[in-house]
C-alpha cells in the first residue's frame, strides 16, 4: 500500500522557494499573493511497516531542526493549494535517490514494482485568489504540462484528512515487445510508413533504402537469419543515422550558389569538406599541438607534455523550447558525455552556455509555448543544476535576446575536458573496438524517453512535434559514472568508449561497431526502467546518462567490479565482431541484420538552391541620422539595453570555481561585477600553465550579411582570448551553427534560397578566418531548422525564424597564467590606449538597433592587418606592460570604455580626436561604431615607452588616462565635452535592468 509523506519548513523559517513563487506571480502577472508555502510530498509505493515508515520519515526525510512532516496532510493555511507532480515516465531524480536512501536505511531492496515518487504542494494565500488564477499560476509558473500534472483545491474543495489524494505516476504499458515488418513494395508505401511512424525519412533516401532491402544478395543473407522485409528496428536505425542531426546532411549537401539573382551558378559540393575539414587538416599539419580532430566526439589539443585538453560544443534547442528546464539540463549533462567519450575518456574540467531567447518583456500577440521570460528562467536553472551537480565549473556564458528566437530558442552548451597524454603507455586520444570485445552499456536505464528526439530536432517545431522527446537529465547518476569510467580508464580497461546521445544505442553501437566491422547485440539484456518497450524503442531510446564501452573479455570482471564500487549499473549487452553486419537479436530471434556500413554508403546527397541578394538589393541603406546632443542619456540607455546590461544573477548561480582551478573568473574588477573578456583556468593544479577560453555570439550582423556576422564573431572570440593573455599561435576553435531551414519551398519557405546562401557565405567566412588566423576547428556542430510556427491573436500561425547564428568558441594554452590580465582599469594615472582602427561601420550595430535602424555597412575583419596587432598585444601582456586589456565589441568604444571604468571603479578622461580612425567625422561614429580588431588597454606611465615601442608600427594611440576622480569624461572631436557622468551612474544604468534578480 502506498504512503504519502508531507514535509514542510517550520513556520518561523523563511520559505525561499515559496517566496520566489510569490515574487514571480507579482512580477510576471501582477498577481498579489500574501504568502506561498511549499510542501514536499514523498509517495512511497512500497510495502513498508509502520515502524519502517517512521524510521525513514525521521532519519531521511525530515530535518528535526528545520522541518515538520506527517503521513497525514499537513494543516498549512491556504486560499488555493496547487499540487504538482510528474507525469508517468518522467525522470524523477529525487524519487530515485529516495529509493537508494530508504534501501540503505532499512536494509531492504525495492521490488521491480516498488518506487518512490516526489511531488509538491503549494499553499497560496491571496485576497482574491480564484481557482482560475491558481490554474494560471500552475500552468505558467509551476508546471509544464509536457512533463507535469497538477490539481487545484480551494479551501472549500480540499478535504483535510485525504489532502490531495494519492497519485502514483507509474508507467504501466501492458505491452508485449513486438518486432514488425515494414512492407516496401513501393516508394509510396515506405513514405507512408515513414510519415505514420514519424521516421522523417528524406524522400530521396527512400529508393536507396528499398534498393538495399530488395537486393538479391542482401535478401539471401537476411533469409538465413529469418528476415525478409525490413523490420521496424532496422528502419528506425536508418532514420536515426540519416537524420540531419546525426549525419549533417545539410553541411554535406550540394549547394547551387548564386552571388545575386541571375549570376552564374557556382556549385559548392559539401560545405563541411571544403570549409571545415580542409582548412582544419591544412592547419593540423602546421600546428603540432593539434592532437585529434574531425572524427571523435570532441577535438583534442595539447595542454602540456603529459596532458591534452578536449573540447566540443552543441545545442539543445528543440527540447529546451518545449520544456526549458528539462531541455537545458539534458543539454549540459549530455554535452559533458562527449569529452568523457573522447579517446579513452577525459575528465570534465569546464563548461559554458549561450542562451538565445525572445525579448523578456514581449507582450505582443504571438503565443509561443513558453513565454521567453519563463523559457529563460527554465534554461538558466537547467544549466545551473546540470553543471553544479556535475562538479564542473560553468565559467563562461552569454545571453542574447532577439525576436527571432521566439520561434525556437537556442541553448548552446560547451564542454572542456582533460586527459592524460597516455594511458598505460597507449595514446589516450586513440580508441578502437576489436572483434571479440564485449559491448557494455553503463549508466542509466532505458525507458521511452527521448524517442524520436533526433528526428524532431531535424524538423520545424509545430504543434504535432511529439512531446515524448523531452527529458530531465540526471547529473548525479552521470557524475558517478564519470568517476567510475575515469578510474577504469586509468586501469587500462577501456578499449573504446562513446556516449549515448541522440539516437541512443543505435548511434553509439552503430558507430563503434564500424571500428571492428560488426557486432552482435542481445537486446533483451538492456536494463529497462519498466517493461513493455518494443525492440525498436530500446534500440533508439535516448534515455540519458549512458555510455557504450568496448572492453576486452579479460578485463570485464575488473570493469564490472569497479562499476559496482561506484554504484553504477553496467551490463554486457553484446559482442563486437568482424562479420560486417549489425546483428541484433531479442531472446535469440534476429530482429535486425544489416551491413554495418549501410548508413554511410551511397545515400543521395541533399541539394539546395542558394541565392544571395546583396544588402543594397534587399533595400538596406544607411539611415539619415543627425548627431545626438544628449550623449549622457544615450550612453546610459545603451548600457541598459538587454543585450548589453549586467546579468550577474545568472553568473552567480553557476559554480564557476569548483575544481579549485579558477584564474580569470567570469566576473572581474574592483567590485567583481563586470564581465571578463575570457576565462582562464589552471586545470593541472601544480602547473603554471593556463587554459583560456572565450566565446562570441553576434548574430545581429546577419541582417546585413552572414559572411560579416561570421567573420566578426570569430574575430571577437579571438580578441577576447588575446585580451586576457591568450597566445595567437595557439587558438583552437569550435563552430556551432544554428540556422533556419534553408530548403526552398515556394509556400513554406519562400526565402529558403537566401538563407541557404547565407549559410554558404557563413561557411566561407569560417574557412577564410580560420586559415587567416590559424585556427583549426577542433570541433563543431550544426543545428538547422531554427524556426517555429506561433499562433497569433486569431489562431492564425506565423512562422518565426531565428537570425542566422554562429556561436564561436576559442580555446588556447597560456604558458604562464600568472601573466594574465583582466579588463578592469587598475590605477589612477594609468594611460588609456585604443589599439586598432575605428571606421564608419555602424551597420547592424547596437547603436543603430537602439535607434530602430539596420544600416548597410557593418564591421569588416582584416585578419592580415589585425593579426600583427594581436601578436603585439600578446607580447605586451607577456612582458607585463599592460595593466589591463579589453576587446571593443558590441556597443562600441563608448560602452567598452564604460566597462573598464566600472571594472576599475575609477573615472577616466578620453579625447575622441586622438582615437585612431579612418574617414570618421562624427563623435557618435567613434563612440558606437563596432569596427573589429580593436582593444582598450591601460598602461602604467612607467611602461609608456616600452609599450608604445611595441605598437609603433600599428594603429595605437593614447586617448586619455584613468582618473582618481569618480567621473567618466569624454571630449569630442571638436574639443567639446560630450560626457561627464559619475561611474556610479553608469554602473546603475548597467545593473538596474536585472538588478532585482538574485
Amino acid at each position, binding site marked *: 500500500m502506498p504512503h504519502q509523506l508531507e514535509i514542510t519548513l517550520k513556520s518561523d523559517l523563511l520559505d525561499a522557494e515559496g517566496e520566489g513563487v510569490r515574487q514571480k506571480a507579482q512580477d510576471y502577472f501582477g498577481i498579489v499573493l500574501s504568502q506561498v508555502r511549499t510542501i514536499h510530498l514523498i509517495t512511497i509505493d512500497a510495502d513498508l511497516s509502520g515502524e519502517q515508515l517512521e524510521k525513514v520519515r525521521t532519519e531521511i526525510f525530515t530535518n528535526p531542526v528545520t522541518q515538520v512532516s506527517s503521513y497525514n496532510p499537513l494543516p498549512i493555511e491556504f486560499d488555493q493549494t496547487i499540487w504538482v507532480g510528474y507525469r508517468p515516465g518522467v525522470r524523477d*531524480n529525487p524519487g530515485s535517490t529516495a529509493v537508494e536512501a530508504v534501501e540503505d536505511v532499512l536494509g531492504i531492496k525495492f521490488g521491480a514494482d516498488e518506487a518512490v515518487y516526489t511531488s509538491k504542494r503549494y499553499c497560496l494565500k491571496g485576497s482574491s485568489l480564484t481557482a482560475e488564477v491558481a490554474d494560471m499560476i500552475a500552468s505558467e509558473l509551476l508546471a509544464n504540462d509536457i512533463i507535469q500534472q497538477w490539481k487545484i483545491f480551494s479551501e472549500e474543495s480540499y478535504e483535510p484528512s485525504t489532502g490531495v489524494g494519492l497519485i502514483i505516476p507509474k508507467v504501466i504499458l501492458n505491452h508485449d515487445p513486438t518486432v514488425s515488418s515494414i512492407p516496401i513494395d513501393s516508394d509510396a508505401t515506405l513514405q507512408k510508413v515513414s510519415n505514420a511512424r514519424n521516421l522523417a525519412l528524406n524522400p530521396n533516401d527512400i529508393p536507396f533504402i528499398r534498393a538495399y532491402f530488395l537486393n538479391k544478395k542482401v535478401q539471401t543473407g537476411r533469409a538465413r537469419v529469418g528476415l525478409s522485409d525490413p523490420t521496424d528496428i532496422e528502419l528506425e536505425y536508418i532514420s536515426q543515422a540519416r537524420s540531419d542531426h546525426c549525419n549533417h546532411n545539410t553541411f554535406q549537401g550540394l549547394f547551387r550558389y548564386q552571388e545575386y539573382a541571375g549570376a552564374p551558378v557556382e556549385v559548392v559540393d559539401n560545405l563541411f569538406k571544403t570549409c571545415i575539414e580542409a582548412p582544419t587538416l591544412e592547419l593540423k599539419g602546421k600546428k603540432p599541438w593539434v592532437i585529434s580532430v574531425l572524427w571523435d566526439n570532441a577535438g583534442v589539443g595539447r595542454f602540456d607534455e603529459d596532458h591534452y585538453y578536449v573540447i566540443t560544443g552543441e545545442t539543445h534547442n528543440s527540447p529546451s523550447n518545449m520544456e526549458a528546464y528539462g531541455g537545458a539540463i539534458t543539454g549540459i549533462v549530455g554535452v559533458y558525455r562527449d569529452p568523457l567519450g573522447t579517446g579513452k575518456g577525459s575528465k570534465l574540467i569546464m563548461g559554458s552556455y549561450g542562451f538565445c531567447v525572445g525579448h523578456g518583456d514581449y507582450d505582443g500577440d504571438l503565443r509561443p509555448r513558453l513565454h521567453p521570460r519563463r523559457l529563460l528562467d527554465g534554461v538558466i536553472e537547467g544549466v545551473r543544476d546540470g553543471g553544479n551537480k556535475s562538479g564542473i565549473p560553468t565559467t563562461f556564458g552569454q545571453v542574447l535576446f532577439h525576436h527571432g528566437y521566439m520561434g525556437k530558442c537556442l541553448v548552446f552548451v560547451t564542454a572542456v575536458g582533460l586527459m592524460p597524454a597516455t594511458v598505460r603507455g597507449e595514446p589516450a586520444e586513440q580508441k578502437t573496438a576489436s572483434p571479440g570485445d564485449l559491448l557494455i552499456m553503463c549508466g542509466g536505464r532505458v525507458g521511452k524517453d527521448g524517442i524520436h528526439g533526433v528526428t524532431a530536432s531535424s524538423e520545424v517545431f509545430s504543434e504535432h512535434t511529439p512531446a515524448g522527446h523531452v527529458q530531465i537529465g540526471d547529473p548525479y547518476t552521470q557524475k558517478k559514472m564519470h568517476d567510475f569510467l575515469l578510474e577504469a580508464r586509468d586501469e587500462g580497461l577501456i578499449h573504446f568508449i562513446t556516449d549515448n546521445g541522440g539516437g541512443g544505442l543505435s548511434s553509439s553501437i552503430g558507430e563503434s561497431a564500424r571500428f571492428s566491422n560488426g557486432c552482435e547485440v542481445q537486446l533483451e539484456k538492456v536494463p529497462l526502467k519498466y517493461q513493455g518497450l518494443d525492440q525498436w524503442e530500446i534500440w533508439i531510446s535516448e534515455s540519458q546518462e549512458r555510455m557504450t564501452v568496448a572492453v576486452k573479455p579479460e578485463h570485464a570482471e575488473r570493469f564490472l567490479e569497479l562499476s559496482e564500487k*561506484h554504484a553504477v549499473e553496467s551490463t554486457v549487452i553484446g559482442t563486437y565482431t568482424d562479420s560486417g553486419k549489425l546483428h541484433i537479436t531479442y531472446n535469440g530471434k534476429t530482429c535486425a541484420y544489416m551491413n554495418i556500413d549501410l548508413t554511410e554508403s551511397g545515400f543521395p546527397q541533399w541539394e539546395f538552391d542558394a541565392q544571395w541578394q546583396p544588402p543594397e538589393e534587399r533595400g538596406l541603406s544607411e539611415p539619415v541620422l543627425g548627431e545626438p546632443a544628449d550623449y549622457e542619456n544615450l550612453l546610459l540607455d545603451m548600457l541598459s539595453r538587454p543585450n548589453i546590461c549586467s546579468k550577474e544573477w545568472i553568473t552567480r548561480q553557476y559554480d564557476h570555481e569548483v575544481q579549485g582551478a579558477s584564474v580569470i573568473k567570469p566576473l572581474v574588477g574592483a567590485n567583481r561585477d563586470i564581465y571578463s573578456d575570457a576565462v582562464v583556468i589552471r586545470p593541472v593544479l601544480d602547473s603554471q600553465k593556463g587554459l583560456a577560453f572565450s566565446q562570441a555570439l553576434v548574430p545581429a550582423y546577419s541582417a546585413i550579411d552572414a559572411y560579416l556576422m561570421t567573420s566578426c564573431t570569430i574575430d571577437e572570440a579571438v580578441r577576447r582570448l588575446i585580451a586576457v593573455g591568450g597566445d595567437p599561435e595557439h587558438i583552437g576553435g569550435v563552430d556551432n551553427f544554428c540556422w533556419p531551414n534553408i530548403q526552398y519551398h515556394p509556400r513554406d519557405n519562400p526565402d529558403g534560397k537566401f538563407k541557404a546562401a547565407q549559410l554558404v557565405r557563413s561557411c566561407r567566412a569560417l574557412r577564410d578566418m580560420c586559415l587567416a588566423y590559424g585556427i583549426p576547428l577542433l570541433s563543431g556542430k550544426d543545428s538547422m531548422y531554427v524556426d517555429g510556427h506561433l499562433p497569433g491573436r486569431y489562431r492564425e500561425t506565423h512562422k518565426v525564424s531565428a537570425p542566422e547564428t554562429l556561436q564561436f568558441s576559442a580555446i588556447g594554452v597560456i604558458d604562464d597564467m600568472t601573466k594574465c590580465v583582466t579588463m578592469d582599469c587598475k590605477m589612477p594615472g594609468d594611460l588609456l590606449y585604443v589599439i586598432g582602427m575605428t571606421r564608419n561601420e555602424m551597420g547592424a550595430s547596437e547603436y543603430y538597433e537602439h535607434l530602430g535602424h539596420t544600416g548597410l555597412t557593418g564591421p569588416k575583419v582584416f585578419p592580415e592587418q589585425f593579426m600583427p596587432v594581436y601578436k603585439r598585444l600578446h607580447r605586451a601582456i607577456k612582458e607585463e606592460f599592460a595593466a589591463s586589456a579589453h576587446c571593443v565589441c558590441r556597443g562600441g568604444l563608448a560602452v567598452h570604455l564604460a566597462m573598464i571604468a566600472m571594472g576599475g571603479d575609477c573615472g577616466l578622461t578620453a579625447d575622441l580626436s586622438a582615437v585612431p580612425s579612418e574617414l570618421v567625422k562624427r563623435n557618435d561614429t567613434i563612440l558606437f561604431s563596432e569596427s573589429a580588431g580593436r582593444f582598450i588597454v591601460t598602461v602604467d606611465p612607467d611602461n609608456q615607452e616600452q609599450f608604445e615601442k611595441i605598437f609603433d608600427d600599428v594603429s595605437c594611440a593614447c586617448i586619455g588616462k584613468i582618473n582618481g576622480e569618480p567621473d567618466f569624461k569624454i571630449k569630442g572631436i571638436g574639443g567639446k565635452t560630450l560626457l561627464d557622468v559619475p561611474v556610479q551612474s553608469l554602473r546603475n544604468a548597467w545593473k538596474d535592468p536585472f538588478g532585482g534578480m538574485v
Partner: protein
Amino acid sequence: MNDIHALVLTGYGLNCDNETAYSFELAGAKATRMHINSLIDGTVRPDNFQIMVFGGGFSWGDDHGGGVVQAVRLKNNIGDRILEFIEKGNLIIGICNGFQTLVNLGLLPGFGNDYATRSVALTFNDCGNFRDDWVTLAVNPASPCIFTKGLGQMELPIRHGEGKFYSDESVISRLIDSHQVALRYVLANGEPANGAFPFNPNGSLHDIAGMCDPTGRIFGLMPHPEAFNHETNHPDWTRTRERTKRQGGKPDSGITPGIRMFQNAVDFFR
C-alpha cells in the same frame, strides 16, 4: 617526522575531492582520495589516517537536503568507526556539503560528547538560489577550533544553495558561549555582516559560516578553503599584483589562507 595522512571521501556525487587532496598535499599531508564504498566495505580503514575530510559536492544530488543521505549512509554503515576515529583524537573537517553531512550526522555541534543528535541545520539560502561569490570571514580567536588557530580575517569562496545556518536561539547561545562559532561572515572592514546580503550570502543566523565541536577537532564550514589554493584563485589577484608591482614589491606567491587552514590540521599532529 611521521607522515600525516588525510582521507578525502569521494563518490556519490561528491566533487571537490581532487583540489581538496591537492590542498592537503600543499599543506604537508599525504592525501588519499577514497570512495565512500571502499571505506564501508573495509578496503580502507580510518585507523591509517589522522584527518578525515568530508568535502564539497552534491552527494546523492542533495535531493533530500544537503548532506542528508550521505549522513544516513555513513551512520548506518560506519557510524561506529567514525566515532572511534574521533575518540582517538583525530581531526575531521567538513566543507560545504561535508559541513551539511557533519550536522546531519550529529557530529556537530557535539555538545557534551553527544555526537549523534541533530540540533543545528544548514538550510536553503534566503536569497532563494545557489550562489557563487567570495565572502569575507572573521575568525574567532577564542575558538578551540584547530583549523582556524592563528588565522586572521580572510576571504574565501562560497558556492552553495543550502548554507543558511539555523538553530534554536538556546543552541546558538551555547555555541557562541563555548566559542564553537569559529567563522563568521563580515563586511570587508571586518564589522559584522549582521545578515546583510551579499556579505552574509545565505541568511545564516548570527552570520555563522563555520563551527567546531567543543574539542575543536571537528570543524565544519560552508566556504571552500581548498578553492583558494593559489594566489590566482583570489578574484582581485590581477589588481593586487599591479598594485604590488607599482610599489616595487613582488607578487605574494606564499601560502594562501585556504592552505593555512589545512596546515593547522597537519601541525596539530606535529
